[in-house]
């Protein structure tokens, strides 16, 4: 599974690094920093939860 973040859409809600800190971090302003573009095995459900909870629909998962 792959993750893609559209940083133009991110406004810093922080749901991704709240819910999946293994996959996302925050920059100084609290915006999304993608840690793993290729999701490590076993973290696929967390990747989906992060994408599902982004209020700006900035996170996409692809098989």
């Amino acid at each position, binding site marked *: 599974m792959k993750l893609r973040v559209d940083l133009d859409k991110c*406004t*810093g*809600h*922080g749901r991704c*690094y*709240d819910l999946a800190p293994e996959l996302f971090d*925050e920059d*100084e*302003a*609290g*915006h999304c920093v993608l840690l793993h573009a290729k999701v490590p095995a076993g973290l696929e459900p967390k990747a989906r*939860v992060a994408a*599902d*909870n*982004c*209020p*700006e629909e900035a996170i996409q998962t692809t098989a």
Partner: protein
Amino acid sequence: MTEPEQPETKPASRPNPDPESGEVNLFSAEFAGCPQPVYRGLVQKCPVAHQTFTGGKVLSRYEDVLWALRNPQIFSSEMEMQLALGTERPMIPQQIDPPGQTKYRKVLDPRFSKKRMLELAPDVRRHANELIDSFIDAGSCEFDQAFAVPLPCTAFLSLMGLPQSELPFLLRLKDGIIRPQTLLDGEPTMEESQACRVQTGKDIYAYFEEVIDERVRKPGSDMVSYLLETEIGGHKLSREDILDVSFLLILAGLDTVTATLGCNIAYLASNPAQRERLVADPALLPAAVEELMRWEAPVTAVPRIVREDFTLHGVAFKAGEMVSLQIGAANLDDEEFGDALNVDLGRVRNRHMAFGGGPHRCLGSHLARMELQVAMEVWHERVSSYSIAPGETPVYSPGIREVTHLPLVWPAA
């Protein structure tokens, strides 16, 4: 002789919202106490409604509210009615649009990041425990005054570097803007409320003029000192800029978490099965805090002004019209949430709008989430089995839904 029959223009009780006229009343105490049925009516039957009393259109469906929040070029935050909130200039950054707003958010967002807010968590936890120590043995408290007001306000004042002794004074200033009716005798007219806001606005500016003077003389690690050192595009912020940011921070920082804590605890006190589920499984807490914000939406709506003509659901919107975006209604839209009427404290997918969205996403959202999680965790560790005092009914204030009367009881030690 018989009287001619009066046409039935005013039935005894009109539905709210009224699907026939499209009118909705969003300012009653009844609405503040139980807004969910009104929200459902809006979402299902009145996607574009008209506000009774204040006028202006109302958007309620999740998709529509999201679209509005994300498109400030159509739905502007730059009201030509700052005076309505007692300010002489726009509050920064809430009442200005991108791209100007973006520059301010760039320097403000880092001061309110999650990492920074988590540093405050131990102090909030200690204070929550101290507050509970002071009343737990009594087996009862008035939740608003005993816990919901002091906890977040103390944290906020220390963030701002303002003395705790000034809290009563600052709360009065905040209420003078947000709910002037609580400071005025009887039932004030719109004009009297407005006069109170304007005077309070002047008092807030005067207060922060003094704070700025003090910080110029003696800088610290507080917010105003930071703003005095902050540059945008090589220029220091002006004194007016700092006043306009401070005005917003004091209104937002001293009200919203108080309101949210009250709404959350009132809900759980009235729904014992939900409270028991949370107490039995504390790991639910982060999701529960999100779900209660979705359900309660203490900040019920945000205003915008239309900049471009458009048509939505067959209704023409004209440039210059006011639109109220119903956050609370959008949070109850089945199209987004599937089972929106089900309060599921373990909800896995929850893109609620309690913190708004788009470029104006609540600046304090990470502070609020930290405070709510710590407060709810400590409360349920210490006071797990509580309910509304027998014979009492919680009282919610219109506008931002603070539960101003929330008498709780629990088995005393």
